[in-house]
């Protein structure tokens, strides 16, 4: 992929967005998509939109309203892009948009640094079971500095 555009979504609105870091200077797009704004929970309030917008104004990103995948593909065509780069998502609605984009253009998905790297399968039955695996990997090594002092 030589000249991609970047699709910035609402789970990665910071300067550490992996797509922005990997492709500085490439055209980037954020879409306010009706499906995300008026999904199962009903329309989100204006304060959420203002908050998102304030995050977006700090990023080098074009902001649009419309159908997510259509806007991303139109933006790619506008910039004669040969693919789309984005960052990993959790919200399945973002996955739906990504699938539509990927059906038309190569889509590269960049992963952010994980919070904790756990061997699969992770027991998510209750938090306590997850924490039994994650806790030991997350606790700071308090012995280190003491030993070296």
């Amino acid at each position, binding site marked *: 992929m030589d000249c991609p555009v970047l699709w910035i979504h609402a789970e990665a609105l*910071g300067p550490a967005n992996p797509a922005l870091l990997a492709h500085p200077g490439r055209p980037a797009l954020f879409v306010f998509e009706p499906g995300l*704004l008026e999904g199962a929970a009903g329309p989100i309030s204006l304060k959420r939109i203002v908050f998102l917008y304030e995050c977006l104004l700090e990023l080098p990103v074009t902001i649009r309203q419309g159908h997510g995948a259509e806007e991303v593909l139109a933006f790619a065509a506008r910039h004669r892009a040969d693919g789309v780069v984005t960052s990993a998502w959790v919200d399945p609605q973002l996955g739906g948009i990504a699938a539509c984009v990927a059906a038309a253009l190569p889509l590269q998905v960049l992963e952010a640094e994980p919070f904790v790297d756990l061997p699969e399968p992770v027991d998510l039955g209750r938090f306590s079971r997850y924490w039994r695996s994650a806790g030991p990997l997350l606790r700071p090594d308090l012995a280190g500095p003491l030993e070296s002092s």
Partner: protein
Amino acid sequence: MTSSTPPSEPAPPPQPNRADLPRQFPDRGAMVLELAARFPLASGGASPIRGGSKPALAALAAVDPERYVASRNHLDGAVSGLSPYIRHGVLSLAQVRDVVRQRMARGPGLVSEKLLQELAWRDYWQRLWIRLGDDIWENQEPLKTGQREAAYAQELPDDIREGRTGLACIDAFARQLIDTGWLHNHARMWLAAYVVHWRRVRWQAGASWFLRHLLDGDAASNNLSWQWVASSFSSKPYLFNRANLERFGAGRHCPGCPAAEACPFEGSYEDLQTRLFSAPQLDDQAKGEAV
């Protein structure tokens, strides 16, 4: 694929497009007016909580794991306020983790890992969302309240939604939710317990209400926390009583409450369980410790 991908060619010169949304405003008020016009279905005004990395980094700089653990259950406690920024990736969970770990390690003694654990709760909810997908809107387990599912109303009553139940605490939480888009975790739990157990409304109605307003709202943390309160993702329903609310509520609500003499939260946990659930909940009820 990783972020080590080689940088691509620089972008061609920008081509203005009239459908692009504006990026320049004289001030915040003008931006809010513009967005209100462009998003007519979005209700209300702006939150005093600002988006962007500057306020996010200021909140991160103020994080103190020791003060957090000592006061976090109190409405005026030293909570981090980071959740809206983490939710939208302004700060990554890994970035916050590193700061918390550094501050935990710099003290002379052992600092509680509670704040680290709270970050882990978010990671846990996100992993569950990936696994569950849209099933995150369904009960993960049967309710343990002894009530039939049909006993729960489908819709959130207007008096709750509009903050006019006549209960000073509940109305204050609802107004804060609507005005600011943020609530202390303990207030979220109290409000959710009131909706689900006292008013017997299905948790999905309350979760949807929260998602419309919370700046940090996503279906993972939000819905699964509602299910935790409702008992469809926990071993027993979460309850609170007036003593718990007075202890952790910064003394703000009960004085002057119009319902103080007939407070529905007055009573022991055993009394409340008998009153609210069709079968007594025999387990010891959590005494108001936040999730």
